[in-house]
């Protein structure tokens, strides 16, 4: 045990003095989480303000005074669209759809014809798409009012047009941005774990080979198992340190969030944060062990980095498997690292109860992977020299 601590201490000291490792750690912990939250909050904000701002862009409003009257009565401000609105929509200078009214609108309406109006937007301009629905609803309202008046003048109740009364209750918006935020948060933490200790893992294995320091190490009376465990402990604690900081950075990051809905979503209790860390801990340690196991086969940093890229790419892909399933999660999800943790994180973020039985399977599979990876590394440490 004394040897393991000596090795872990040295490896940790070495990693803390490594600029590349520390840059990775600081960038991820200090910037990653706050950046993600600000981006999400801003996108939620934009969506909400677009719906709430009650403003429409129209080309040719003067052609339809009756429509203008209706629109303004609904509390909307009418703004004259610029002449080059098509180009502005394409270049995303204009983020709302434009309503285009033909010059003969009023004449056609007067003789009982149906004048056409156009909602112009660019499919590639996502913001303009978001504004289509309120605009369509506004026009629908106008249609209903005009038709209703026509019918009323002929002594028919306007209700005849509405066989069914449809009412909308909006629950989805806050829940939607919440779900998006939660999966993004979970994915962010997984990515953090995969990348946080990567350089340290490579340096402690392939780095030793490249420097030529593995051979002298193997000539000391310390077993390969002790070396492996010490190295794993050092890199693992670095990874976990990053994860803990990332999770805790949710607190200060939520100050940067301007969107109310998102801010409410991010109000986690200390217990929830601790639970998140507890869920991620075994995964972080397993990932570290696998990283070292992959990197030990590399003769240089460069080679090991190329090998480890597989892991960096695979991790988000595995997490995404969960997105493609339909209905409830299958049981085998619990056994797959990343998927199992993703599932548990989802539960914690949704304020569901996480039992120790839920934790058992992911912890067990992580422990098995860790052990297998460490066993492989301890065997390899000597054989790569032979």
């Amino acid at each position, binding site marked *: 045990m004394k*040897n393991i601590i*000596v*090795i872990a201490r*040295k490896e940790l*000291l*070495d990693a803390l*003095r*490594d600029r590349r490792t520390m840059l990775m750690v600081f960038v991820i912990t200090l910037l990653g989480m706050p950046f993600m939250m600000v981006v999400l909050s801003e996108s939620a904000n934009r969506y909400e303000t677009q719906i709430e701002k009650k403003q429409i862009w129209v080309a040719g409003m003067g052609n339809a005074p009756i429509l203008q009257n209706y629109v303004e009565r609904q509390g909307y401000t009418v703004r004259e669209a610029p002449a080059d609105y098509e180009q502005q929509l394409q270049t995303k200078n204009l983020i709302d759809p434009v309503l285009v009214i033909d010059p003969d609108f009023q004449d056609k309406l007067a003789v009982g014809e149906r004048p056409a109006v156009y909602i112009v937007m660019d499919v590639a301009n996502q913001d303009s798409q978001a504004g289509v629905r309120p605009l369509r609803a506004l026009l629908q309202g106008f249609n209903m009012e005009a038709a209703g008046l026509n019918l009323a003048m002929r002594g028919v109740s306007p209700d005849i047009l509405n066989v069914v009364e449809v009412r909308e209750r909006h629950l989805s918006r806050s829940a939607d941005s919440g779900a998006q935020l939660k999966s993004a948060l979970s994915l962010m933490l997984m990515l953090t774990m995969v990348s946080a200790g990567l350089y340290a893992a490579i340096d402690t294995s392939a780095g*030793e080979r490249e*420097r*030529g*320091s*593995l*051979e*002298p*190490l*193997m*000539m*000391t*009376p*310390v*077993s*390969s198992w002790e070396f492996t465990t010490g190295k794993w402990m050092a890199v693992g604690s670095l990874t976990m340190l990053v994860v803990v900081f990332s999770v805790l950075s949710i607190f200060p990051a939520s100050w940067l969030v301007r969107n109310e809905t998102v801010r409410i979503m991010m109000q986690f209790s200390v217990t929830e944060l601790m639970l998140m860390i507890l869920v991620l801990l075994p995964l972080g340690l397993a990932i570290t062990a696998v990283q070292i196991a992959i990197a030990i086969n590399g003769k240089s940093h460069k080679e090991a980095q190329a090998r480890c890229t597989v892991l960096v790419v695979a991790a988000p892909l595995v997490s995404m498997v969960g997105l493609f399933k339909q209905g409830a999660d299958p049981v085998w999800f619990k056994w797959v690292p990343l998927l199992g943790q993703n599932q548990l994180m989802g539960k914690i973020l949704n304020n569901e109860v996480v039992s120790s039985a839920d934790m058992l399977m992911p912890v067990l599979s992580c422990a098995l992977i860790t052990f297998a990876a460490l066993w492989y590394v301890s065997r390899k440490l*000597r054989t790569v*020299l*032979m």
Partner: protein
Amino acid sequence: MIRVENLSKQFSRASNSFWKREQNEIVQAVTNVSFTAADGQITGLLGANGAGKTTSLRMIAALLKQDSGQILVDGVAVHAGEQRTQAQMGVLSDARGLYPRLSARENIVYYGLLHGMTREQANGRVDQLAEILDLKKFIERRCDGFSQGEKMKTALARALVHDPRNIILDEPTNGLDVVATRALREFLRWLRSEQGGSKCIIFSTHIMQEVERLCDQVVVIAHGATVAQGTVLQLLEQTQENDFENAFVKLAFEPAHRDAA
């Protein structure tokens, strides 16, 4: 004391092509190396490049498994990958990597701790070695940017930090200037003496002057086998040469002399 008997080792070099199943190339690195390195003596392993010196030393250091033969360190058989004999050995191999982000002292102390010393003991030993090997100027500096000589001295101190009874040095003067080489020679002589602990020192080199000036016993290795052994004088007599370089060339490259030896 280190005894090496009939050591042999072959490597199989993988074929270059991934798709074609070709026969792996077999390289016989060591065919028959035998010698005894006594305590209180400096034994020089002398051989041309690729003669099998480094492979033999790696087997003695338990890094490589021999195909046949036996190695005894202080009477204990060496098995590759096992640590039994390593506590009694200080090895400066051709891989001399230091940790660039640690200071020379931290590098050496780390090995001391791995050899079971306490931090105080290791630090005390570092001070002692710093004095002898002239490391004081850079002992507290990080190894990143060390000159070849500074690296070599640090690696040497690291190999000797636990004061081993048996010392194996693979071409230790590589990269050292004249003054440092002299200092190293003096140090090795001191280690051989009773005050220095009568160490058993094996020293591999291909530099004749070093062998002439330093070694009590010379083992000439050629083509993976021991072709001659004895003191410098004995080898000169055997080859009837006055110049040791000529004697070595005769022993290593002329079969008639090898057979006579």
